[in-house]
């Protein structure tokens, strides 16, 4: 089963989302800030990263840019989780190099669809 790196600083959201993803059969790896997210992306080589945008230490925008700038992690698809659609976060997230975005609070079926699409994309050499 695919390995997902979830980078989320809020404990409840991290707990909830990781449990729900695990129930759907994903192997979930956790990170609590942008710095740890980048480290885990290198160590764990996940198939996909779900990245919250407002993170301590290194925020999601910067983390996405760093992940996409590094040859090691460039191929890993990123779904950005942003505040909400109207505020222009969508454009900013895509501009930072994310492959897709979703808004919080998570609607699980929608997020699962997006994950499934990105995971099935053939040009993902990072796949297990």
């Amino acid at each position, binding site marked *: 089963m695919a390995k997902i790196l979830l980078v989320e600083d*809020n404990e*409840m*959201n991290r707990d*909830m*989302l990781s*449990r*729900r993803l695990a*129930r759907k059969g994903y192997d979930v790896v956790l990170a609590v800030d942008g710095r740890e997210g980048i480290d885990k992306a290198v160590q764990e080589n996940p198939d996909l990263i779900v990245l919250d945008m*407002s993170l301590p230490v290194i925020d999601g925008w910067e983390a996405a840019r760093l992940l996409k700038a590094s040859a090691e992690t460039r191929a890993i698809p990123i779904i950005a989780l942003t*505040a*909400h*659609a*109207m*505020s*222009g976060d*969508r*454009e900013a997230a895509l501009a930072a190099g994310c492959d897709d975005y979703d808004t*919080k*609070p*998570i609607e*699980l079926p929608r997020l699962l669809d997006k994950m499934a699409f990105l995971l099935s994309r053939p040009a993902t050499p990072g796949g297990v």
Partner: protein
Amino acid sequence: MTSNQVSPPVEGLLAERDQLTEEIWVSRRAAAIAAELVVEQFEKMGEVQRRLEEKAAVESALNALLQLSLEDVPQDDLLHRALDLVLSMTWLASRAQGAVFLAEEDGGGLVLGAQRSMPEAMQASCSRVRLGECLCGGAAAMRELVFVEGAGMPGRAGTAPHGAYCVPLLSSGTLRGILTVYVDAAHRRDSAEEGFLRAAADILAGVIERRRIVEQLRQATRAADAANRAKSTFLANMSHELRTPLNAIIGYSEMLQEDAEDAGQAELVPDLQKIQSAGRHLLELINAVLDLSKVEAGRMDLYLEEFEVAGVIEDVAAVVRPLVARNANTLDTRCDAQAGRMIGDLTKLRQALLNLLSNACKFTERGTIALLASRAAAREGESGDRLVFAVRDTGIGMTPEQLARIFQPFTQADAGTSRQFGGTGLGLTITERFCRLMGGEISVESAPGVGTTFTMRLPADVSAARQPAARPAALGQAPPPASFEGGMRLLVIDDEANARDLMQRYLAKEGFSVVTAASGQEGLQLARALHPDAITLDVLMPGMDGWAVLRTLKADARVADIPVIMLSMVDSQNLGYALGAVEYLTKPVDRERLLAVLDKYRRADAPGTALVVEDDRAVRRLVRRRLEKERWTVAEAENGRVALDWLDRHRADVILLDLMMPEMDGFEFVERWRAREGWRSTPILVVTAKELTDEDRLRLDGYVQKIVRKGGHGHEEFMNEVRDLVRCCVRPRGAQAQAEERKG
């Protein structure tokens, strides 16, 4: 013969000699007197010449000062150059010593703003002068021009003996500074010099005042911007803080629902759903408030992209279908093949359509909800094609009272609606704001029990439609019509939206046709494009200010003849007139005064007011349009009684009268009108389709100027005939109209 014997011939010669000497002496004296007279004459001529030269020097120095006062240079620089201009006058040039002091804001004293050739010790001791102290402080305290002769003043702080003028710089009675110039010790006070110095001081005071206000405005704007940014940041942070716990509430309640179902505890599910839906509602509210506050703060940006309209319609329909089904409604979508592509903000368009559709679903049961999209040509005042999106339902509809409040925030049709139907009460407000943001508009039609139709009319290319309104502040406003309709044509240039709106509404009511411009640049463009009858011009505007606009207008032959009325909070009449303004009014504008001023130019330029008395609306319209083309101001009355009422309160320069009208016909009107005092001054043209009998003619004879038959020939010919008759029956008031008449 002795030597002292003089023979008679010699005696004659001697007498002749004496005679000649006498004559020579006389003529020499005459010559001397003549020469003296000539010299005197020359001196007088020299005096005249000198006076003329002085006058020319004064005028050119004041002109140069005016020019300088409009330049965009730092204040220090400006004061120094102004001082140099003043000191260039011949009677000051030998010393060329002087200074400009600026009054402190609290009025306690003066600080040295600029100086020329003052000894250093003097500069140091005069860097700040208290009110009443010294000569300058004295002039400042008295607010009067002070002159001191050199003899009465010992050289102070290293200066040689000198006299001085100290002139207060006053703006609307408030002291803004002092202009000090030194004169030679023996120099005497002179009224012409005082006149020059006072004029220069007026100009300087105006400049200082203007710059002071601009600076205040700049600071106020900076403070407001900072406050606004703080508010936006606060809202963004706040909404994030609110959303985070909500995520948990919604997420865990969803998880628990799944758990409860798996564990066979279905009875818990409805309660868990309530938690979840309450959480979602709260979230919607937070998002909506954030959106709205961003729009209101002018911080909602547009992300323009090109997309297929049909695709959006399909997409939105798919999203909304479950919602439609909930109340057993059916969805009918239609997208014209011509709708094509749009350049706009896809997210906001989707959001607007979803808001309208979810609204329709909420208030409709077992009915039909239609989503329609089509392309339409530009209407007057619009540029480029429009896309029209309509959402129509067969729901409960709204009363006119409810309709009036529909786009206001937090107002649903009534307080109970929210409980019954849910929703934030902000969806329509946000939708309306989004439409305006994209340069479009939204309208609504509704009848209780029948249904409601919302129609959005958006530019097909939002990027092109947005370009003329360069300032984001203007985005909230509906685009003004950039053409005149009728009446005296007036261009209002003011950066303040409220001021424009007030002027437009007030003057339109008074029969003016008003076009507004929100900036100096826009004003210049419109002035050139529309050539209005008059311009009102605000002085204080960001970017290109009123003075610069005035100067540009007057330097452009195409528009230089348009009378310009300056409106300003600052009293700088002289500067206004010097630059070619015809009137100068201070803000807040006194309406009566403004009307009186405008009336002056209406009378001078326009041919006058025509009253069209005619019961057929279409004919009235035609006549009006034709006369307005000739720059007449046109009033309409649908019968004789209405016309008489109108004439009670207004003056007409010509009356065009139909004969066959309900209530009071043309014959009766003429009878009543001629019974009035002063009726003779107003020519009446009868325009009628009636075959006139001899008796009819008798009744009208002597009271009407001319009778025109309508219906006898084509429209155009008829209208031309009316126009020509109006032209020659009425003595035109303005020279322009006379010239036209001669040409005709």
